[in-house]
């Protein structure tokens, strides 16, 4: 083999094993699931491909509430994260000084504890007579029947908590990259603090906010752990339904149809968001 041919083939040889793994276990399954969502039948008698759109119609009409709730919870959690996280990212980027990496490390601490365990820890902390509400109730500051668990507030706060670092980090990266000379230039041109913030810092931080939304909205909307641990039975999300249909009822066509609906919804949301925000290529932002 000539050395030029070998050089041309090298990248393909490097990609081959991992690419094959992703093709078989990531790309192909998506197609399989699409096909499964259009089949009819049941676990016992087997499935046949029949272009059965009923799974979609049934799934969406039956679980309409959960779908809408998921989107609302996901949006609410994302919004809370932006509001709570931006000042933190801002302060670390501009005032963190030499200890920036220490603050970032502290922000990432939760990731050293299992996601499920963290959520259960919240459940424990917020329980009706738990560490937070117990003392407040015995002091008479709250009525005896006051509760946080099994409410939508608990679920949204749990979601916001669990994915907050994913929001702060990209915002921090964008803010950290801002050249201090730009801020000086703004001040030289008689912009006040507010003007400088609104017209220089904020626009330059948008790619970070964009990446953060991308990294938090998708997992928050499709989550079922928070709804299940913190939300009781009346705040279930679409993830709970998919999990239940797949693993308990084993109604694969409806479960697949719902997964596909969720995926389409998320893709459409991201696409619309990218168009409206008008930032550069989504890929480019995400690749940073």
């Amino acid at each position, binding site marked *: 083999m000539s050395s030029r041919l070998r050089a041309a083939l090298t990248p*393909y040889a490097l990609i081959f094993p991992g690419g094959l*793994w992703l093709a078989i276990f990531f790309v192909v399954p998506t197609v399989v699931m699409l096909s499964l969502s259009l089949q009819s039948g049941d676990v016992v008698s087997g499935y046949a491909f029949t272009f059965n759109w009923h799974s979609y119609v049934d799934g969406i009409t039956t679980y309409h509430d959960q779908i809408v709730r998921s989107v609302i919870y996901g949006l609410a959690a994302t919004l809370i994260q932006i509001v709570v996280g931006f*000042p933190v990212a801002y*302060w670390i980027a501009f005032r963190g000084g030499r200890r920036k*990496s220490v603050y970032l490390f502290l922000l990432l601490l939760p990731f*050293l504890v299992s996601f499920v365990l963290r959520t259960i820890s919240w459940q424990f*902390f917020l329980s009706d007579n738990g560490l937070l509400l117990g003392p407040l109730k015995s002091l008479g500051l709250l009525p005896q029947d006051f509760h946080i668990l099994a409410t939508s507030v608990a679920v949204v706060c749990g979601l916001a908590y669990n994915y907050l670092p994913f929001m702060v980090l990209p915002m921090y990266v964008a803010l950290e990259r801002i050249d201090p000379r730009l801020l000086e230039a703004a001040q030289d041109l008689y912009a006040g*603090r507010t003007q400088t913030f609104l017209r220089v810092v904020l626009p330059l931080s948008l790619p970070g906010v964009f990446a953060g939304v991308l990294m938090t909205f998708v997992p928050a909307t499709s989550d079922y752990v928070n709804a299940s641990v913190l939300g009781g039975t009346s705040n279930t999300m679409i993830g709970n339904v998919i999990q239940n249909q*797949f693993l308990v009822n084993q109604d694969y066509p409806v479960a697949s149809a719902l997964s596909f609906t969720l995926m389409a919804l998320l893709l459409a949301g991201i696409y619309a968001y990218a168009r409206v925000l008008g930032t550069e290529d989504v890929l480019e932002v*995400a690749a940073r």
Partner: protein
Amino acid sequence: MNRGLLRGRGLQIYTWLVIAWLALPIAVMILFGFNDTHGRYNTSWQGFTLKWYGKLFEIGDLTQALVNSIVIAVLTMVVAGVLGSLIGLALGRYRFRGAGTTNLVMFAAISCAEIVMGASLLSLFVTLAVPLGFWTIVISHVMFSISFVAVTVRARVMTLDRSLEEAARDLGAGTWATFRLVTLPMIFPGVLAGSMLAFALSIDDFVITNFNSGSTLTFPLWIWGATRVGLPPQVNVMGTLIFAAGVLLAVANALLARRRA
């Protein structure tokens, strides 16, 4: 000036409050690993004890679940570490037809909702009648970790100076010798970081594992199954030890980096 100072201070206090909020459930977890409970429920403070550290491995299937998690994470780290690094090297170093598609698949795998990934992989296994268990978990973990490793390694490769490899070749080193003696040592920090990320993603994964585990249990799955009946203090202790190990590793890493610099 005074106002600016005050505002800076206010934001600092706010940042610490957010950090405290993030750390709160961890503190609760650690604290209740030292709780002297006698009944089945570990829900109210009964006094300080170290006994759960002594009885750490007394619940057989919990211990087995933790062992499963660690073994799966190590396998994932090795397999995804190698496969992902190769992709990262190709994407960072070469321009070739198909690079765009590969990048797109990476991006899709990173941003795809976990539940969709888990559910579609389960669809494949169900359709092919593959029995679920240990190996399907490993397959799924490698699948979702590869892209994270590849992206980490690609970033490292892109910062490298190509002239060093050209110099090695000018000095008579063959392709393999150049790779082993020049390229690999230079990209190794990226490979190491990517592999450790794969380990961390694997040991903490719940959603995709939940879909593809069959009756095999990992540490997060065991905890999930036990939530309805109440968690034994051993779970808190194991969580605390994993947390401590993670903190130690991160601190050691930072100190080493500082010494090298």
